[in-house]
């Protein structure tokens, strides 16, 4: 190749002639890989595969699994129903204080989950800002119920969803909304037939993110909803409990969550994120 590398460089495009990667970058990179993979590999290696079925069929595990599935699906549905319109408002409606509202909506993203739980108790607890009138007028109490689990999950997951969908709505472009308007479509029709279909990859990615976040939710849930088997004990809460009594069960259940997480990742990469 030599002199005319630019013309005939077809043999090894993966080898730019910029020199060897320096150790000062390689060593930390290897350390990072070890930090990220060793715990997971240990978990897989240490799982008692032969007793997997027995451990997963205990009633506590089955109840926690069911509650986790229920809460995470309910969370995704709430995100779709409430978060999609919110993302649309943030992306398409120009009003004073929009950036302030966006910031407020995104706070739970960076908030420590325990703080989120305390905030939820303050608002919806029996003596809370909203919880007290709910209790006094309707006899409805939210804390320590499955509803509380779903609310806590939605609180921490929605910002992920809104962020993903708002980004998708912005990159899908307002120009297509203008085209639809010249074709006589009102904004609802435009939203249904143009905006949402174009933002669909973002909606799916956002839903997957929200679902994954909900699956692992622990801090806000245990603070606001407690850890009662059958009503509020989700998989992460169960793992936390079992780690103190039966670490083997904790590892097995963790293994299940790991497999599910990897499944989400694979699904995202292969099906949704690579689509235009």
């Amino acid at each position: 190749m030599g002199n005319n590398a630019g013309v005939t460089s077809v043999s090894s495009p993966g080898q730019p002639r910029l020199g060897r990667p320096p150790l000062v970058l390689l060593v930390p990179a290897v350390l990072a890989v070890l930090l990220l993979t060793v715990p997971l590999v240990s978990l897989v290696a240490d799982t008692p595969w032969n007793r997997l079925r027995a451990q997963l069929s205990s009633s506590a595990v089955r109840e926690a699994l069911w509650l986790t599935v229920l809460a995470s699906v309910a969370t995704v549905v709430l995100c779709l129903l409430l978060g999609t319109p919110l993302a649309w408002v943030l992306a398409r409606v120009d009003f004073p204080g929009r950036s302030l509202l966006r910031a407020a909506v995104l706070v739970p993203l960076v908030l420590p989950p325990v703080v989120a739980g305390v905030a939820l108790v303050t608002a919806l607890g029996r003596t809370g800002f909203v919880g007290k009138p709910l209790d006094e007028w309707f006899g409805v109490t939210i804390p320590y119920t499955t509803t509380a689990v779903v609310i806590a999950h939605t609180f921490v997951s929605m910002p992920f969803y809104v962020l993903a969908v708002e980004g998708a709505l912005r990159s899908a472009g307002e120009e297509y909304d203008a085209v639809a308007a010249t074709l006589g479509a009102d904004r609802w029709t435009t939203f249904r037939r143009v905006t949402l279909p174009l933002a669909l990859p973002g909606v799916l990615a956002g839903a997957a993110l929200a679902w994954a976040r909900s699956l692992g939710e622990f801090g806000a849930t245990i603070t606001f909803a407690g850890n009662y088997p059958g009503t509020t004990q989700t998989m992460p809460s169960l793992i936390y409990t079992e780690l103190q009594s039966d670490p083997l069960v904790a590892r097995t259940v963790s293994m299940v969550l790991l497999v599910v997480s990897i499944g989400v990742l694979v699904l995202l990469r292969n099906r949704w994120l690579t689509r235009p």
Partner: protein
Amino acid sequence: MTALELSLTVPGRVQATAVADRGQVVAVIGPNGAGKTSLLRAVAGLVPAVGDLRVEGRSWVDLPVRERAVGMAFQGQLLFPHLTALENVAFGPRTAGAARDAARRTAQDWLDRFGVGELAGRRPRQLSGGQAQRVSIARALATDPRVLLLDEPFSGLDVGVAASLRVELARHLASYDGVTLLVTHDAIDALTLADVVWVLDDGRLVQVGPPREVAAAPLTRHVARLVGLNVLTEGDRFLSFSPSSVTVSPAEPAGSARHRWPGTVTSLAPHGDAVRVLVSGEHELLADVTPAAVAELELAPGREVWLSVKETAVRGYVAETGTGES
């Protein structure tokens, strides 16, 4: 019959007062930033504008975009990428309340008329530029608009593709009874497609007239360049002459030519069999010379020359009043 009356101001972009008749094709020309696209978008209602806009007697100023009977072919087509060509064209009839099957039949009919009927099932990314532009114009027309807005329909197309689309479009526009506003950069579009030319310059409408008149007596440098003419102003008079009537000499010509200017050669470019030379001095002027003359006169950028033109080759005219200036 007057079908379109507009007196619109898009603050900071464009200000224009003009009328157009039923079935008329108006070419809107002017340099980049003159406000052509802004004017189109103001008619569609896509940018805020103040003033008056009446279409077939009905005021449009307070109507939202979707209630204006416009069809717009956007720059870059903007076909909905998730819909097929057929669904793109059927979108308008559907929102107008047509049943699904009826809308699809209307759409297929429009695609057939534009010669892309067999591409109905394709997505926009599977269409070539010319095909996508045909679908885009079909989509704009499928809503039966009273005003058709075409924003640079031939830009980005290969020369041959643009030429054949121009011929087809001329045929469709001839049978279209609404008003067409066609934004273009190309003098050929204005001359072949339009009944009237609106010349915009720096956000103002500076000339209105039939294409031939505007081409023969342009009032802006931009149009002069578009039609390949030199235009000078002398008081309120405009002087125009063709680059081929300009003589280039190495020294001040001794002859009888009244019009003569010294200048510096700025650029040379092939133009048909000739070479078009741009000379900058008191004015920027074009001269067409033979390749032999280029060699003989040693014409190259930076060369000092004299230009002259015979009085008989110069056309003098004054800007008519009532050209839409306000």
